[in-house]
């Protein structure tokens, strides 16, 4: 009986979420971008020298960056339970291309870069809506 109860609890308790840390380091003349998760605006604007942390249930997501005069740059995120993902925003701003690239960054290289960054607020109601879907 106790085993059955444990199995029942195990079945219904959700997997712990994965954690996403999205950051941009100092960039001269860098501009702010809209960050979208599965098409929903999560951060606007996401400026250089900022870091945002949020949690997502395991699954596949599209993370996109866009600005009114930029190209959309996107990254496929495969979030696994309990994993921590560091994603760095790198801006290309030149005559041919304006875009904020989102790239997976190794944890060992990311952590030292996070120290001087300011915390970026995110739109929690949008995040909750994405998570509920």
């Amino acid at each position: 009986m106790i085993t059955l109860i444990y199995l029942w609890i195990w079945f219904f308790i959700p997997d712990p979420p994965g954690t996403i840390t999205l950051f941009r380091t100092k960039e001269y003349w860098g501009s702010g971008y809209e960050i979208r998760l599965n098409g929903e605006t999560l951060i606007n604007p996401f400026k250089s020298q900022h870091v945002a942390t949020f949690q997502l249930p395991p699954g596949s997501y599209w993370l996109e960056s866009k600005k009114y005069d930029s190209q959309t740059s996107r990254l496929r995120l495969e979030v696994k339970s309990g994993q921590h993902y560091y994603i760095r925003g790198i801006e290309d701003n030149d005559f041919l291309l304006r875009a904020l690239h989102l790239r997976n960054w190794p944890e060992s290289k990311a952590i030292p870069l996070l120290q001087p960054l300011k915390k970026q607020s995110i739109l929690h109601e949008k995040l909750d809506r994405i998570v509920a879907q």
Partner: protein
Amino acid sequence: MRFFFTLLTATWLGGSLSSSAQIYPVFSPEITPIDSAALDEVPSFKWGIHSYAGAFIGSFQGRIYPNMRAHLKQQGIPQDWTSENVFFGFGLSKGLFKIDFEYTTTLTFGPEQNDRFLNETSTRSFTVHPAISIFKTRNRTVYLQTGVGLMGTDLKISPRNLTSSVAFSQIPTNPVVGSYPLLRHHGVVLDIALQLIHTAKRPRDLVESFRFGYRRGVEERAWFSPVLTVTGTPIDRAGLLYFQTHIQLSRNFKKS
């Protein structure tokens, strides 16, 4: 000369299209989002060749000839010391360094005038600019440029006398009172400038740049006329302040 400009234009159009096609495929029906994971982390080109050009948009120059300026002011002749310029150049870059060879000329939209005189001033120069990168990020590079070259300025001053008339056929034999011959000043100049340019990231790249600089003659020289021996002309050390906006086409290589 016409062949040269046709070749230059064709090279530029082809190069620009080729550079753009790396990002915006010419025959693609729509621009697809960029796959972030597919991009280079940091560009690391060892060397490159480039050519650049610019015209009156965002380009400006002010000439500094204090003694001739004082003479014109004294005679009531209008001053024409500022103008837009047209320029093109080519060069090589390697690591932190680059060298540019540039020809600049003046774009005139007509003479300055008052009741008594017309004055049209033009400047042209050929300069060589060794430069070193003093600041570099993924997107932008600042170069400290030095330079040496030849610069010449022409002054065309004509009196206005609309009360008397002369037959067109008699102009060659009928001297105009108060007429100045073509006046010219030329000499060797040294140059210092700061250039802000987009960092090259692609094998074929098209970038814009801005340059602000100052040019000064190495010695004081007298104005002269190439059509008449004139004595007692003002003596000036040439000076030029300029701001230029370039469009630069480059070919970059990773191997040295």
